[in-house]
């Protein structure tokens, strides 16, 4: 069952991409094509596009990405813990509490330093 599941998964990924591509190709075949100079302008609320659209973003985005990564890793480590929690009892509970507690310290630190504030 197990490996078969992954085989189906691989097939699904392939089929899904193929499905999306097929939709695009089919539409490409049947759609009218009437390109025009102004049609191909970037939308800018009805004006000629001006300035550069590739702007620089604030560092806060990066901070959120880093925090996401960190908590994601935390979650990834907690998943195995959650699965075996039943069998290990109090020991596992205490360990996880310590683990979560240390990360909560980090969260509180970020909070207190106003790093979570999005201006």
């Amino acid at each position, binding site marked *: 069952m197990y490996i078969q599941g992954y085989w189906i998964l691989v097939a699904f*990924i392939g089929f899904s991409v193929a499905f999306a591509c097929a939709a695009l190709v089919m539409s490409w075949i049947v759609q009218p094509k009437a390109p025009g100079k102004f049609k191909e302008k970037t939308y800018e609320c009805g004006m000629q596009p001006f300035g550069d659209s590739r702007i620089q973003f604030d560092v806060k985005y990066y901070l959120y990405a880093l925090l996401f990564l960190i908590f994601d890793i935390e979650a990834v480590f907690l998943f195995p813990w959650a699965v075996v929690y039943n069998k290990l009892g109090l020991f596992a509970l205490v360990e996880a509490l310590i683990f979560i507690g240390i990360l909560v310290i980090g969260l509180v630190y970020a909070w207190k330093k106003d790093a979570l504030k999005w201006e």
Partner: protein
Amino acid sequence: MFDLSFTLNDIFAFIWPVIPFIGVAALLVFVVIFLVLMERKVLAWLTIRKGPNRVGPGGWLQTFADAIKLLFKEDIMSSETNKILFTLAPIVVFAPVMVIYGLMPFTEHLVAINLAVGLFLVFALSSLTTVGIVLAGWSSNNKYSLLGGMRSAAQAISYEIPLVIAVLSIAVLAGSLNMIDIVKAQGGGIFTWNMWPAFIGFIVLFICCIAEVNRIPFDLPEAESELVSGYNTEYSGMKFALFFLAEYAAMFIISVLIVTLFLGGYTSPLGFYLTQIPALIHIEQAFWLVAKVYTIIFTIIWIRATLPRLRADQLMAFSWKFLLPMALGNLVIVSVIKFLGQL
């Protein structure tokens, strides 16, 4: 290492993914078409309008008409877009959603891909769509798209964390990451649902799920009063349709997910099945799932009709300062409950 001995059966096993895939693809298209219509009808009823009522009896074929229209629409691509990524983005957004459909347990046997880490994989794949949205925003070379894409990414990753941590409490309760196991653990009727011990988690997950599919009050990436249409501003025709399809398909998925994790999935809330014949039990399971899922979907539409949208910073603060602590607290509460239950 592969534990497979090749017989005719196994060759069939390698071909048979085609069948569930066709089933899932048909289901996805049907669900989306129905969902769009349902949303429009329910919204219309909530706001004293009639809703679509021209195409087909009572407007039931409206979405088909829209789909056909989108298929035949010219696909306008701005000359300044990055054409490769612009085309790739809708595929990156759509394909994972479709794979997730295969992971969902619709009835006890109707789950196309049954994996030991199914639940975990659902989140891995759902967060992949974020990358597609950022690509869409970046490749459009449009200011609104870029802002929308970045906002969307920031939002998605911020709500991913409480979501995953809320789900951890389910893993604690079920002791497994397999979707079927999780449902089976709460098969004893309404009082064995995970919703009760993990009620905070249920609320957190519900909110996060609404945020993950960018719906009001969390629809900032597409806030039309600010960013026109967000990351899909430049998209038209079939490429837009793929985003649209993915969005509504995702809405169905999150409802199935909420039901599966917290509301007993396909099991009967009564604790026993009304029908006793195995074949009928199958149908009854599907019925319970659909009933629960559409209750959730109705709630989501109802929320859309009621609330205004949040601002970007409030959105972020809500996730990090409210939902995340709540989710962590929920995890601790649930593990303590579970521990006490074992004593």
